[in-house]
C-alpha cells in the first residue's frame, strides 16, 4: 500500500493491522517516533495526521489511506534549521533522556497551532496524555511559552 509521510509517498508492504508506528520505524526507518506503551497511554508515538496529533501506536496502517503523516524528522527545514518549538526546546534545555520528547514536541506543535499563547493550565491540559519519567514537565511548559512568544512576536505560524 501507499502512504504519504513527510511529503513523500512511500510504498509499504505490511499487514493492514500494523500500527503506523511500526511502519514508520521498521519499514521507513523513521525512528524518531517512539514506542512507549503500545496502548495510547504515554504519547511517545505521537505524529501528525493531516496536522492533527495522533497516537501512531493505535492507528492501523490500512486506515491511514492518503492522509498526510508528519513525523518529528520533518519539523526542521531541509537546510537543518529548526522549528520555533524545537528551538525553544533547546533554549529551555528540556530533554533529559530525550526518549519521550519527539511525542512531546509533536503535541506542543499542535497545541500552538490551535492556541498560540497557552497558559500553564492550558498546557497541562493539552499535554496531560504525554508521559515523561525524567522530570521535564516544568521545562516543557517553559519551552512552550518561549515558542509562543517567539512565534507571536515574529508574527509567523509555528
Amino acid at each position, binding site marked *: 500500500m501507499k502512504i504519504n509521510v513527510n511529503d513523500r509517498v512511500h510504498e509499504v508492504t*505490511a*499487514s493492514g*493491522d*500494523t*500500527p503506523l508506528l*511500526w511502519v514508520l*520505524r*521498521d*519499514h521507513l*526507518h*523513521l*525512528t*524518531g*517516533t*517512539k*514506542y*512507549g*506503551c*503500545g*496502548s495510547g*497511554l*504515554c504519547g*511517545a508515538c505521537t505524529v501528525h495526521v493531516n496536522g492533527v496529533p495522533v497516537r501512531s501506536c493505535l492507528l492501523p496502517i490500512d486506515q491511514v489511506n492518503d492522509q498526510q503523516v508528519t*513525523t*518529528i*524528522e520533518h*519539523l*526542521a527545514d531541509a537546510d537543518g534549521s*529548526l522549528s520555533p518549538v*524545537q528551538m525553544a*526546546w*533547546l533554549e529551555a*534545555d*528540556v*530533554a*533529559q*533522556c*530525550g*526518549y*519521550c*520528547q*519527539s511525542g512531546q*514536541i509533536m503535541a506542543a506543535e499542535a497545541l500552538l497551532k490551535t492556541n498560540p499563547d497557552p497558559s500553564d*493550565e492550558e*498546557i*497541562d*491540559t493539552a*499535554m*496531560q496524555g*504525554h*508521559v515523561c*519519567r*525524567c*522530570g*521535564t*514537565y*516544568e*521545562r*516543557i*511548559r517553559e519551552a512552550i511559552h518561549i515558542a509562543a512568544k517567539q512565534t507571536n512576536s515574529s508574527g509567523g505560524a509555528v
Partner: protein
Amino acid sequence: MNTLTRRHFIRSSSMGAGALLVGFQLPALGDSPKSLERLEGAAESLMTDAFLRINPDNTTTILMNHAEFGNGAYTSLAMMIAEELPLDWDTIRIEAAPTEKQYYSPLFGEYLTAGSVSTASSLIPMRTAGAKTRALLIAAAAKAFDVEESTLTASQSRVAAADGRSLTFAELVPVIHAFKLEPPATVSLKPASAFDVLGKPTRRIEGRDKVTGAAQFGIDVKRPNMLYGSIQRPPIFKGRVKTFDASRALEIKGVVKVKAIDAGVVALAEDYWTAQKAARLIDVTWDLGDGDKWSTEGFFSEYRALSNEPGMLAEDIGDAERTLAQHPDAIEAVYELPYLAHATMEPMNCTAEVHQDRCDIWVGTQYQSNDRTLAAKTLGMDESQVTIHRTLMGGTFGRRASKTADFVVEAVQAAMGETRPVQIIWSREEDIQQGGHYRPLFVHRLKGCVDEEGFPLAWHQRAVGQSIMQNTKHDPAYMVRGMDIYSLDGCLQAPFGVFPYGTSYQIPHHRIESHNPPKVGVYPHEWRAVGHTHTGIAYECFLDELAHLGDKDPLDLRLHLTKGHERMHALLTTLRQVSGWDEPMGPQRGRGVASRIYSVSPIANTVEVTVSDDGQYTVDRIVCVIDCGFAVNPLGIESQIHGGIMLGLNAAAMSAIDIEEGRVLQSNFHDYVPLRFHQMPKVEVHIMPSDAPSTGVGEQASTAIGPALANAIFDATGQRVRQFPLSRQGFTLKG
C-alpha cells in the same frame, strides 16, 4: 607568518599532509617512507589521549566512558575536557568508549555508570586528558611558529601566536607527527578561580539530536537484513519452557522462526509488530517450579513477623534497647514499602549480530563490562570477540545496570544460530509485568523515645527485605558482616562499609538491625537512590513522629540533630529561609520536610500540599536544596533534581507492584501510573555554593521527597501513613 602565507596554508592543507608542511619550513624530513607515512596518517585523525581524538575537519571526538541516559554525563564530561582544552563547543563529537580496561570506572573497576559518581570520578581523568592534549598542541604550535610556548594562546579549537598567526588543532596534527611530539607525562590543571567552563550553566551537548528525532537509542538501531524478536515470557518470573506449539504463530506472514531460549519462546519476524503478534500466539506449556507460591501479601506478613525478631546488628551506639525500655512513652511504628518497577520510557531492547568468530551487540546499557562477560559466556567466546556498541538510553533508573545482563543475554541467545542480526524489543507489559527486576519490598519496624526537652533520645530500627547485592559479583564488597549495606543506606549514623557517610543526625542511643530474608520470587534490583527509596521514607517519617511526640517543629528538630554536621546544618538553615518554612499555612494545607545524605551529597526538601476532606490532594510547592560540592553544571544539576523529585513523588504517591501466586498484577501505564503534567508542580532548586570536591546529584533527589510528602499530609490532616503508596491509604493525588 603573514596573511598571504596563512591563505596559502589553508589552500595547501586541503592537498594533503605533505603539501601542508610547505608553509612551515619544517626541519627536513628526508624522503623516508616512514615519515611520509606518518604524515599521511596525520591527515586522518589523532588520538592525543584515550579520551580524545582530533579529526581532520577540526572537530574533536570525546570518547565517553560513562553512559548517557538523561543523567547529563556526556555534557559534564565534555565540560571537563573543554575546561582544559579550549574547544569550539559546537565541534565536539561524542563517541561511546569501547569496553577496554582503560575506560573502566576508576571507582568501580568495571565499565559501569552508577551510584551518582560519574562527575566526581571523572573530573581528574577528563581534565587531565584535556590538559595533556592542550600541552601537546601548544608544543606543536611553538614548533610551527618558531616561538616560545608561553607566547601562545589556545581558544576555540585553535592555537594563536602573539603576532596573530594561528592554526587549528587539526592543522597542528601533522606537526605533532613531524616532530614526534608526545603529551607531557604530567600537567598542572587550572585553578578553580580560572574556570571558564566548569560551574557555568551548560545546555545538554546531545540536545539537538533529541529534538530532531536523530538521537540513537538502542531501540533505533537498524542493521542490514535485521530480524525483530518478541518473546513470550513465562507468566511467573523464572518459569521455564516445557514444550511449545508454534503452528499458529508460523502461519503469520513475515514470521521467520520460533524457538525456545532461556527467557521464554522468541518469535523472529520481518518487523516488530509481526513478531509481537506471533509471540502472543505461541502455545507454551510452562514449568513454573515453585514460582507460583510467592505473593506480596505473603512477603509483607512474613517480613512483619520477622521485624519482631532480633536481626543482624549493623550499628549500636549507646544503649537504645535499655533506654527505650525505661521510657514508657516510647512509640513504635511499622513502615511498609512495596515493590517498584523502573518503567523506563524506552523499554528494554538489544540487538545482536553473531558471526562465527565474533559478536556485535548494540545496546543501551549502564554496565557494559558485565554485559560483555555474560554475552561471551553465552556464546562460548573469548570476551575480546564480543563488541558492545553502547547507545543512548531512554531512561534507566538503575534497570539498565543488570547483574544478570538479562536483556543482553537473551538477544544473544536469540541471534545464535541465525545468519541475520536480531533485535529483541520488550513490550511495555513485559517491562512492568514480566521483567522481574524490582526495587525490593521492605518492612521497617522502628521504636523511639524523646528526652525531657522533647528531642530524640533513643532509636531502634529493624529493616527487613531482600538483599540486592548478596550472592552477586558485588558480594562481598557491598555486604558487611552478612548485611547488604544498600538495605540500610541512610539508617546508620556512622559510615558503613564503602559508604563514607551517615545520616548527619546525632541521636544518643541508636541501634540498627537488619534482616535480609532469602532471595526468592523476583530479583531485587537497584532503583534510583537504591536503599534510600525505602529507608528514606521509614527514617524521615518516623523522625517526624518523634518530632510530634516531643512537640517539636520538624525542621527545628533536624537542625538540632545536625549540629555536628556542618554541611547539612547549613543546608537546612538555607532551606528554612528559601522555603518560607515559618510562614503560616491555611486550612487543609500542610508542609513537610525531610533531609538525607546519599553518595556523600546532603539534600533536603520541603513539600506543601492542600488536602480535601475526601483525601484528594494537590502538591502545591516543592523547594529543594542540595550540597553537591562544587557544582559542575548547575543547569544539569537542576534537571537531575527535577527528575529525582518526580520519580520519588510518583512512587510515594501511587506506585506499587503487586504479586499474587507469582503473577505480577500491573502491566502498563493504566495500572502502574506515571505522574502527569498537572500533578507535578514547579520545583524550586537551590544549590549550596561550595568549593568542596564535587559529589553526586543523579539519585539524591529521590531520597527526601517521599517522606516530605507523607509528612506534609500528616501536617495537613493529622493522619500518619505508614503503608505506601499514599493512594492506597485514602490519599489521592488529584489528576
